């Protein structure tokens, strides 16, 4: 809510504080006040009055209830003079509400008796109140808000202020002018009585009535307030009633009445009527009638009807009987005719809410389009129509009505009108009786349908009375006869068959069903009228639910909900299955309906157990039919109901459910199976073909991207041997020929060679380990030179060598980012500041509690130590090990060292096959190198698995030990959990990293990808390493060509550098919007990539432009090659290195304008020869 100036003035500082306090979850002051009020320690006006009221409290407990009226009568005069609060005299100010300590609650019957005694003394005032209430309700329904306020003012004048009037006023303001105005009124209450119970009630009612506040949300919030503040039971019951109207148990009414006895006359009266409505419709207490009878003088029809339910028949005839013309029209199926009559009836009496209900039913049958509602009544009418019609927005209609009921609960007519849906499909007999009772009592007229909730004698009397009144009208006779008996020939009239069935259903619902239900429901289920049929389903479901025939219940639910989705929220699925364990109900797993019903349950009740039951039942279903996956259901389709198969496959068989299927053992299996399912569904469910196609496309892309990222991960260790081979052809052809010629002539002196070989030495130099041989023989010297040169290229070529790829794909950013990721995600790591010192971890320092400055200092140091040590593991243990071993890089684990035996074998091979070409020779050499590299990779994997992992173990363990020494357990629970979680994630990340160190030449991989996929994969892979960098990336591509894996790797290297460049140099930390445009130009066979990113205003400067020029110059003259040898440095030079392996390439970059930087790259590519697009058909073939 935004407060404008005029509203702000209504919010005094204390309310602001209170609101702020509520937001901070501290205890608002009113709760302290509340507790003291209800503990009886609240200040009272006179010193002795406390003890007097205590005496009255004792009298209430010891006297018999018969003696109450006399006692009250006898003391009334004294109370009026000395203790007006006991007479519920007129209160002028809000702060006077609930000033009196509450009486100790008595049992319900005695509490009713005491309340009746007090109310009897105030009959003249209550008469006035009743008349004004009628006027208020009529004005409200006519939307005459001025008239409504006038009536409310008069009520306050006559009866004094009350919680009831506060609530009614908030509701009126809300309807009249919306949130701002009602909030302003709440401000007035608060100003008048700051910190009071009235202010609290006003605040809570106002919150409840806000449009954004849902009924369930408010109830939940209130319950958590009650629990949080540990309020006693009586007060909790009272607050529930006061703020929501919820009364869990009729016995709770005793507490409510006891509280209202110290509130106001109006509040007591309305609580009294609510109590008696519940009591009289459920289990009338003996002697109650004698207490009520005098109160009927008030003229309130509610009390007359309550008296009737308690046995008083004399006054019922005084009430107005409803006109039967609309009923006649409806029952004969003339819904249009009925609409007109009902509209007139409502116009003449807005309080006639049953006419509105009938009108909604007619509109439902006519399927009228009522348009956008403009008034309260139109909204209610539209919602009721939605319910009768089983419209798809059924639950929304229900929620809207519940919200209106809650907001306007102080108005009995609205309360009943909007409460009507609660009984429509309820199956709790006891609750039904209460709801029917409430409808009967609050209805300003008398209606033939009221008979359903009456007892035997009452029915008879009522029927006789009605017959007299309606002069034996056939419609009245017909209705009552149908309601009295459900036998087929009970109705002699020409009611339409559908209407007869609906009345019978209505009767069964109201009476909580009986054995005739089956006969009626079977007839209803075969009706052509959809509404009748669905009513029949509801009725049958409740019947089955009660008779505990679970299998039949599940079959019914599955059958009908898969045809009429709205029934999912109407049938009592949660009531039947919600609180039972799967094991206990032992459903039939071979039936499709079991899984479907559990899915329906999950849609009603979202909890982990329901989800587990659904997943297991799905697995068991497949198992019982020996199906390894759901898509195979198609093979036995004829065994099942087709709509249910469709629902099962489309709604139930989603990845989160399929996870539990024992034959689907990997994430990829799930996704592939879902594609199969969607393909199957395209044949079963034509209406949603497009949706399934879209799902297939999304999943296929995801699978493809995942496969691509995996491919990239496995191609991080790479040597471009093709490139080296091309280089060797250019550079080593001549020398190789000479070596071969010499070796061939020296054949046969193996003994001498062996001797030479024995003298081979390995000498470490700056350029790496070099095999050194005494040049006894020229041929051997040349051979060893050749091998040495090729080894150097294999390991160190800046364009093709292992070190170049290790640097680009692993050491540079990727490994640090990936290893830091898990700890970074949980905010355990900080970075260095400009001085090189690690920054304090403010995130976690603000999340440890009740610490002394010394403790904070220690924790700060521990976390800084942790960040530093963590990075040290990466920088000192991990990265140095991932180097080519040399004198300078002695920790490097990549050696690729040929020994004497290898050289001898190469020499012999060359001698034995003098016709060998250089390519064949390099192939042999590379085989040896690959073999040796694989051994090195094993060493790396072992090192990471053993040494690095144990370093991280030690690090996390020490962090936990240090924290444990500095803090008490309860001070850092979250931090401790985060550290444990991070360690598990680090271990898993290490597993993934270890997997990088396999030699898999992906250039030969057969996968192919669309250009867009290539882009997504490359970005996905880069983002996994660039932790903390969260750009928004838009990809534009119109090319539909398919690329091989080599393009993917190349583009991935390029995009990683480009994105890292943005992350480091753009100066934009918050989600920079990067556009990546990628196009293939078939004319020059080039793939063009453009990356444009925003830059901060300070980035473009004379200095930065000079720097760019320097980079461009280094690229032009080739000096960049020296600079990209080491990690760090300019990304732009690295890009040049990446693209320069293609003689025909393009690279351009610079500032597009003051706000954007661009990179333009072009590389020649070869399109994939064999386009392999994962199509559903292929996957089916593969999986089957």
């Amino acid at each position, binding site marked *: 809510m935004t407060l404008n100036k005029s509203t702000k003035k209504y919010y005094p500082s204390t309310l602001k504080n209170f609101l702020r306090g509520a937001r901070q979850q501290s205890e608002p002051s009113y709760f302290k006040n509340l507790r003291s009020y209800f503990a009886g320690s609240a200040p009272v006006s006179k010193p002795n009055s406390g003890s007097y009221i205590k005496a009255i409290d004792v009298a209430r407990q010891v006297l018999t209830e018969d003696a109450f009226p006399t006692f009250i009568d006898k003391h009334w005069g004294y109370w009026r003079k000395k203790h007006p609060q006991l007479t519920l005299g007129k209160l002028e100010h809000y702060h006077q509400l609930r000033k009196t300590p509450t009486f100790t609650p008595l049992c319900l019957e005695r509490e009713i008796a005491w309340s009746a005694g007090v109310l009897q003394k105030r009959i003249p005032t209550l008469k006035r109140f009743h008349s004004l209430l009628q006027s208020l309700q009529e004005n409200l329904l006519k939307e005459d808000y001025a008239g409504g306020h006038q009536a409310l003012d008069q009520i306050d004048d006559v009866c004094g202020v009350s919680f009831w009037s506060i609530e009614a006023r908030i509701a009126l303001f809300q309807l009249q002018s919306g949130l701002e105005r009602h909030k302003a009124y709440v401000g007035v209450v608060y100003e008048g009585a700051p910190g009071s119970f009235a202010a609290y009630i006003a605040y809570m009612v106002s919150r409840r009535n806000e449009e954004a506040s849902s009924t369930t949300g408010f109830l939940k919030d209130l319950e958590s307030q009650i629990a949080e503040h540990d309020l006693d039971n009586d007060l909790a019951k009272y607050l529930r009633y006061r703020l929501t109207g919820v009364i869990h148990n009729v016995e709770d009414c005793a507490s409510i009445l006891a509280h209202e006895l110290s509130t106001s006359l109006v509040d007591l009266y309305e609580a009294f009527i609510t109590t008696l409505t519940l009591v009289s419709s459920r289990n009338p207490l003996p002697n109650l009638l004698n207490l009520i009878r005098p109160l009927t003088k008030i003229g309130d029809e509610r009390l007359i009807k309550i008296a009737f339910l308690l046995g008083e028949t004399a006054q019922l005839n005084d009430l107005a009987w409803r006109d039967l013309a609309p009923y006649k029209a409806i029952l004969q199926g003339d819904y249009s005719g009925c609409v007109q009559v009902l509209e007139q009836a409502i116009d003449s009496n807005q309080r006639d809410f049953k006419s509105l209900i009938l009108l909604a039913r007619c509109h439902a049958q006519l399927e009228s389009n009522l348009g956008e509602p403009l008034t309260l009544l139109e909204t209610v009418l539209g919602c009721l129509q939605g319910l009768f019609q089983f419209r798809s927005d059924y639950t929304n209609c229900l929620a809207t009505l519940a919200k209106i009921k809650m907001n306007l609960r102080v108005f009995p007519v609205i309360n009943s009108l909007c409460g009507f849906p609660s009984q429509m499909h309820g199956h709790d007999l006891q609750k039904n009786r209460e709801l029917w009772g409430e409808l009967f009592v609050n209805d300003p007229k008398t209606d033939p349908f009221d008979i359903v909730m009456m007892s035997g004698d009452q029915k008879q009397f009522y029927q006789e009375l009605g017959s007299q009144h309606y002069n034996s009208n056939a419609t009245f006779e017909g209705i009552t006869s149908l309601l009295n008996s459900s036998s087929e020939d009970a109705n002699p009239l020409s009611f339409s068959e559908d209407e007869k069935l609906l009345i019978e259903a209505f009767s069964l619902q109201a009476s909580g069903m009986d054995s005739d239900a089956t006969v009626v429901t079977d007839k209803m289920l075969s009706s052509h009228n959809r509404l009748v049929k669905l009513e029949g389903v509801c009725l049958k479901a409740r019947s089955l639910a009660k008779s505990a025939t679970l299998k039949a219940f599940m079959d019914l639910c599955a059958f009908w909900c898969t045809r009429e989705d709205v029934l999912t929220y109407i049938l009592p699925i949660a009531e039947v299955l919600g609180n039972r364990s799967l094991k206990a109900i032992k459903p039939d797993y071979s039936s499709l309906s079991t899984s479907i019903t559990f899915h329906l349950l999950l849609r009603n009740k979202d909890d*982990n157990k329901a989800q587990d039951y659904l997943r297991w039942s799905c697995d068991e279903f497949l198992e019982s039919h020996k199906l390894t996956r759901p898509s195979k259901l198609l093979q036995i389709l004829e065994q099942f109901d087709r709509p249910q198969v469709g629902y099962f496959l489309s709604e139930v068989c989603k990845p989160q459910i399929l*996870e*539990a299927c*024992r034959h689907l053992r990997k994430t*990829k299996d799930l996704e592939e199976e879902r594609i199969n399912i969607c393909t199957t569904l395209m044949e079963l469910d034509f209406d949603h073909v497009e949706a399934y196609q879209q799902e297939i496309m999304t999943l296929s892309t995801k699978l493809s991207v995942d496969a691509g990222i995996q491919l990239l991960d496995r191609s991080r260790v790479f040597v471009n041997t093709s490139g080296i081979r091309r280089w060797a052809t250019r550079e080593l052809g001549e020398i190789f020929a000479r070596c071969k010629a010499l070796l061939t002539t020296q054949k046969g002196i193996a003994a001498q060679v062996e001797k030479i070989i024995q003298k081979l030495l390995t000498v470490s130099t700056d350029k790496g380990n070099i095999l050194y041989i005494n040049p006894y023989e020229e041929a051997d010297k040349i051979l060893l030179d050749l091998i040495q040169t090729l080894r150097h290229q294999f390991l160190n070529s800046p364009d093709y060598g292992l070190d170049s790829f290790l640097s680009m794909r692993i050491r540079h950013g990727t490994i640090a980012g990936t290893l830091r990721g898990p700890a970074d995600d949980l905010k355990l790591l900080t970075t260095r500041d400009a001085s090189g010192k690690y920054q304090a971890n403010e995130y976690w320092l603000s999340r440890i509690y009740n610490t002394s400055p010394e403790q904070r200092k220690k924790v700060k140091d521990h976390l800084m130590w942790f960040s530093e040590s963590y990075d040290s593991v990466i920088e000192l243990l991990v990265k140095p090990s991932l180097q080519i071993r040399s004198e300078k890089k002695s920790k490097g684990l990549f050696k690729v060292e040929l020994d004497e035996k290898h050289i001898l074998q190469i020499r012999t091979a060359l001698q034995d096959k003098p016709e060998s070409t250089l390519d064949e020779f390099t192939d042999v050499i590379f085989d040896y190198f690959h073999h040796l590299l694989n051994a090195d990779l094993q060493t790396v994997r072992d090192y990471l698995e053993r040494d690095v992992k144990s370093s991280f173990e030690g690090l996390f363990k020490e962090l936990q030990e240090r924290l444990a020494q500095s803090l008490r357990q309860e001070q850092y*629970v979250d931090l401790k959990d985060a550290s444990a979680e991070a360690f*598990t994630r680090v271990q898993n990340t290490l*597993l993934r990293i270890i997997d990088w160190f396999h030699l898999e030449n992906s250039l030969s991989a057969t996968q192919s990808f669309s250009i867009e996929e290539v882009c997504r994969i490359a970005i996905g892979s880069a983002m996994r390493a660039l932790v903390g960098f969260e750009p928004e990336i838009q990809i534009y591509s119109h090319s539909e060509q398919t690329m091989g894996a080599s393009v993917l790797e190349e583009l991935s290297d390029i995009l990683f550098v480009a994105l890292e460049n943005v992350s480091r140099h753009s100066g934009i930390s918050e989600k920079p919007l990067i556009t990546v445009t990628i196009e293939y130009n078939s004319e020059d066979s080039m793939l063009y990539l453009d990356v444009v990113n925003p830059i901060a205003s300070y980035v473009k400067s004379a200095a930065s432009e000079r720097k760019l020029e320097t980079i461009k110059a280094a690229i032009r003259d080739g000096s960049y090659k020296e600079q990209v040898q080491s990690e760090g440095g300019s990304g732009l030079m690295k890009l040049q290195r990446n693209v320069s392996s293609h003689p025909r390439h393009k690279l351009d970059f610079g500032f597009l304008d003051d706000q954007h930087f661009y990179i333009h790259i072009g590389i020649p590519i070869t399109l994939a020869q064999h386009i392999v697009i994962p199509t559903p058909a292929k996957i089916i073939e593969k999986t089957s």
Partner: protein
Amino acid sequence: MKILLVEDDGFKSGQLKDFLSTLRSATEIQMARSVASGKEALRQSYFDVIFLDMSLPSYDIDRYEPGGTPKIFGGSELLGYIDFLDYATPVVVITQFERFSTGEEEVNIHSLGKNLASDYPNNFKAIVYFNAASEKWKTDLKKVLLELMV
């Protein structure tokens, strides 16, 4: 004694295995590293006692499998499954978290223990807090195991 240990954290499972092997020489420990492999093990064999981690991945994480949906209450799901299979096997939950949050709701280790005891009275025996920086979990676990043997 045949034990099933469902644990995805390599360090923790190593510690637990070491500890269990010191208690009894004739102990056969079968490992599972996810909810799916835990369920598979339960379907295949009968165990004398089961140790469960609470937060588990859906599938065993390996070079080709990222683990599926992480399950904050994966251990609880497995307990439900044990109950569903009608096994009477005692289950001990060993977790290194003191608080569990699904975003909407949060539960601490004690409340979780109470909930599990109430939901699965036939199987759930105890919840033990594992802290790598302390040896207390060993004492706690030993006590639980002794009670189970009695």
